[in-house]
């Protein structure tokens, strides 16, 4: 009963009571800046959710998602299948393949010969996790990782699968995971966007990325992912025009504020004061963003840790280092995309390069966060949108082959943020085609991520066009086995 009263007392629509108090506009506008959805009427807070406040004590405060765009082959990286080498060239049994639908690229293929990995695997750390020789740096940190080998999804092509992982739905203009977290938890740093996006590309077969992946969907656009790019304008339109210094900008804004205030005195519209606040935040962002983007002050040991590429803007390594800085400065969700993992053919050559591109920096990020004491409160995620087939796509030769898209199993890893370290979760069958134990659906994964941030995925809702929407749509369960 006490619970009921508290629920009611706290929940009774904070928005209404805040706006009901006849306080100066300044405080109301301030409230809306801190918790942007506080004053929105279309939220769904009557059912136990007030935007900007977690449901229970969070384990993690922030997320860094190292998205491996194009779908890395699990057979060559984490999911060790010696049996596939034994069965090299043999047709995959139909009992294993079942009724799995195929992409248009292999649907016409007459034979589906199994193919073992060209690369060797070894066991590492106390967890004795298997890691391939393509990932020597990652191998050294397995005791910090929770490797999930039993992820599965519903889509078989890139666009719908990426969209599914990021928004919980294959189609439709839904908010991205980062937008949901921004909506659910609000801002830690008022001078930086809450959800930032960094792009990079390897040499492998590339698949595009799309801004809908970091879209706010039907949420307020304050929750949209803001792309930080290399170059002089890391955030679009951030830089003052040539020839204008900071004092001159300040003078212009001061004049502007006075003029807008005259307008407020005439119209009494709170939007006018809100606009002035947005200009002030823009002004602060202009200093805060370049500060955080400036890697020149990083000491040598950090540069060494991430590798020399981290000094080349726009590389995956540079983005990893930047991700740490953004996260450290309170950015709730840092989303990286690294393109080039789509190895339909020429896999041994391409994946070797591709893995080299990301291995050192991914491991460095985990190590760096750990040595700063930030890993406990930062959840790092590494993985792609689906897996790859155990059989070859195209011609199988002695030293070359390809693998098609495979939704039934793939591997990701997570580190920090209250996830069990040094753990391998889930198994696939000996041919690496089906999940043998502990399946994790995309919605389960999303539910677990939200849970680590203190949010109940069934209660993080937004009512839009008459329906209550969730990141996890209508399913998903938290995977308690991997929570520390």
């Amino acid at each position, binding site marked *: 009963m006490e619970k009921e009263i508290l629920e009611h007392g706290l929940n009774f629509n904070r928005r209404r009571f805040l706006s009901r108090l006849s306080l100066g506009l300044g405080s109301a506008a301030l409230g809306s800046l801190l918790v942007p959805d506080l004053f929105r009427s279309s939220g769904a807070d009557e059912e136990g959710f007030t935007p900007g406040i977690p449901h229970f004590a969070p384990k993690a405060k922030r997320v860094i998602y190292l998205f491996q765009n194009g779908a890395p082959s699990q057979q060559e990286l984490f999911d060790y299948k010696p049996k596939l080498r034994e069965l090299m060239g043999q047709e995959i049994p139909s009992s294993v393949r079942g009724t799995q639908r195929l992409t248009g690229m292999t649907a016409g293929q007459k034979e589906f010969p199994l193919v073992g990995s060209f690369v060797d695997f070894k066991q590492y750390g106390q967890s004795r996790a298997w890691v391939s020789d393509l990932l020597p740096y990652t191998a050294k940190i397995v005791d910090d990782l929770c490797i999930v080998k039993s992820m599965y999804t519903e889509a078989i*092509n890139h666009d719908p699968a990426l969209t599914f992982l990021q928004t919980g739905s294959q189609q439709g203009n839904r908010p991205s995971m980062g937008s949901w977290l921004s909506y659910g938890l609000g801002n830690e740093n008022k001078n930086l966007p809450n959800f930032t996006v960094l792009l990079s590309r390897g040499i492998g077969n590339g698949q*595009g990325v799309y801004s809908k992946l970091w879209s706010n969907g039907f949420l307020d656009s304050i929750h949209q992912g803001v792309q930080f790019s290399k170059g002089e304008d890391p955030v679009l339109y951030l830089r003052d*025009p040539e020839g204008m210094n900071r004092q001159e900008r300040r003078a212009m804004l001061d004049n502007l504020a006075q003029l807008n205030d005259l307008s407020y005195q005439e119209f009494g519209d709170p939007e006018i004061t809100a606009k002035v606040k947005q200009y002030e935040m823009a002004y602060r962002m202009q200093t805060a963003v370049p500060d955080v983007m400036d890697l020149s002050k990083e000491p040598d040991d950090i540069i060494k840790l991430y590798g020399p590429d981290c000094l080349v803007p726009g590389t995956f390594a540079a983005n990893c280092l930047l991700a740490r800085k953004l996260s450290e400065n309170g950015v709730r969700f840092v989303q990286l995309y690294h393109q080039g993992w789509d190895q339909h053919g020429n896999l041994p050559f391409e994946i070797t390069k591709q893995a080299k591109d990301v291995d050192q920096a991914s491991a460095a990020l985990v190590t760096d966060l750990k040595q700063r004491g930030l890993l406990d409160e930062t959840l790092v995620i590494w993985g792609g949108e689906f897996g790859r087939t155990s059989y070859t796509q195209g011609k199988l030769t002695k030293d070359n082959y390809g693998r098609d898209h495979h939704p039934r199993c793939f591997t990701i890893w997570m580190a920090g943020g209250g996830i069990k370290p040094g753990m391998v979760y889930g198994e696939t069958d000996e041919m690496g085609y089906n999940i043998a134990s502990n399946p994790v659906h995309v919605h389960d994964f999303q539910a677990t991520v939200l849970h680590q941030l203190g949010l109940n995925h069934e209660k993080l809702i937004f009512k839009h*066009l008459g329906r209550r929407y969730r990141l996890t749509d209508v399913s998903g369960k938290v995977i308690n086995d991997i929570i520390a």
Partner: protein
Amino acid sequence: MRQLFRKTYYLLTTVLAIGWFISGCSSHSSSLADEEKLPDQVSYNFDIRPILSDKCSACHGPDANKREAGLRLDQPESAFKALKEHPTAHALVAGKPALSEVFLRISATDTSVIMPPPSSNLKLSSREIKLIEKWIKQGATYEKHWAFVAPKKPALPTVSRKDWPKNDIDYFILQKQEQKGLAPNDEADKERLLKRLSLDLTGLPPTLAMMDRFLADKRPDAYEKAVDDLLKNPAYGEKMALHWLDVARYADSHGYQDDGYRTQWPWRDWVIHAFNKNMRYNDFVTWQLAGDLLSSPNGFGGPGTPTKEQLLATGFNRNHKITEEGGTIPEEYRTMYVTDRTDLFGKGLLGVTMECAHCHDHKYDPFSQKEYYKLFAFFNNVKEVGIESVIGGPDTYAKKPLMEICDEDVQGILSFVNKLDTNKLIVSVMGDLDTTRKTFILKRGMYDAYGDEVQPGTPASILPFNKDYPKNRLGLSKWMFDRKNPLTARVYVNQIWQEFFGKGIVKTPGDFGMQGELPSHPELLDWLAVDFMEHGWDVKRLVKQLVTSATYRQSAVISPEKLQTDPDNLLLARGPRYRIEAEFVRDLVLSSSGLLNRTIGGPSVKPYQPDGLWEGATSGRGLLSMYVQDHGGSLYRRGMYTLIKRTVPPPSLAIFDASNRDLCEIRRLKTNTPLQALVMLNDPTVLEASRVLAARLLQERSAPADKINRAFRLIVSRKPNEKETALLTAYYEKELKTLTKSSVEKSLAVGEYPIPPQVDKTKLTALMRVVTTIYNLEETITKS
């Protein structure tokens, strides 16, 4: 415990800033709505249905597969019957709450008994419980959902202040205000009124000549004359088209993966043309839904076939995204295209969320999954494939079925298509198979999980399909424009109302169903809908009605009392005050600086855009993998002609909430963010316009203050007051004194438009900064 935590967390995170105004308030336990007194007569439609729909329907509503205990509460037959599981009990007993299980369960404290169950995460407020109790006491009468009953024209209400109304609309608005003890604002001053009107009718600010004429015109019908002039301006068609392009998810790329270029823009040119010639709404939609099935004496394939214009109009249903991703399973995507058309038809034209019945019976509205696929069947017979080609050259810019627009067409019937060259021009349009493709219910919405076969048809709860209508898209249009159809007219007048007043009479323009918002002025909505039909679906007439009402002409000043009593302006006791749409922000900047290129239509253009956006996201394939910026006049076109590549939409427009054209969109958000401030301060478009306008003014013989006043008038559409002039002039003088030579050179090097040689560059820079400041005023991009 969780709640305690939440409370602590909230206090912690906000205590520094706003903690003080929370203290002492946390013992409150009732909200405003709870305190509001219960109505004397409880209305099913207005008080009860929203509760049943939102809190009960998921388990006791239309979805047969998810129904619990066999109980359905949205229909009286089921609700009054003996309960299946307890034959002696009844969900509802008219007049007797204490015998009604519904009331007993919602008011229970035992968590094993209470409804909705805690696991649903839903909860009734104490007011909602009291409302249901009172409704049962008063007899628990059901009514048909208001939106599914054909509108009748109500009589005009009586009002006390008889001198205020200017047309029929005002009676409905004033009556509600008088009931709540509010009085309307005075009419806006002429300058602000003309700015509002001009932005609303053309998307452009008034020219100085137009403004001066209007200010000088003292005749009583000066305003009506201005309305008529603006309605004749070709920019009217562009303004009206923009909303329709959102509805129709029009774009210049195919949308998936590689996101290749498409040439669908002739369809966009047709939309502008149709609005300008004031095509009636019923024809406008019929052509788009079924133009290919129409017969015309001068059809392009001989008498009895459609004209090329009618065929072009059907591009509407081919604007959806089309995949070019190699691995695609064709049928999966073909099904998606049909789904997209069906969902658009529901949301954009009927104002209902049909899409919810794609995988299962609708949870709230009386639409079965079978009815969804009956509607789907109308759009399922197109001669198309799921993937026709992967990304490639000009042959892939439209997908079959398509039409070719040749130069003779452009000289004749398609004269409104702004074709620039003699290259082959193809557009995706509708065209059916000669034989009928069978339609099946798709279980869980899966493209390959066939259920029962269905025939084309429409949801019976809206209006049964007339047997005399052909069972194709043409019949579907006839059904839509059947005078008995309760939705079509209401939904469209509501969308138009939203365009002018900022929000619809129904605030959820895409959901007139049970979960949608109730109309704020139901009688007015019905009056407008019937009047619209009675006058032959005449769009310009409807628009004129809205803008000539006293309601529209009010000043937008918000008094502290009105901010308190009606913060959302539901009663319209003040004029609309909103930030203008993304495209019109750009248009205002270009137009007031004199840079705007007034060409209408044609291929979309690529103005200034920050470097690397397309390149960073592309797969590297196709015409749109690199952004090759245009030059000359193409840099200064209206915002609606900026090329929309769906996967990377134009950033300065997206930042101001433009639609990404992924799916049908009927209401844009109106947000206010720091990124918008950065666009207005630093986008070369704004800076170049500032420089060009400043240069123009410097070439005039006048004092600095006069130049500044003139800039202010051009941009804000009113004369500045003394304080404003003084402030801006002082700013100008100060900049003039402090600017260095190098800063001048750098400041002016923006944009490609030439600088007149004779102009003093320091003065130019100082004045340019003043102009940029004026562009950044809140009032500038606001209609107020």
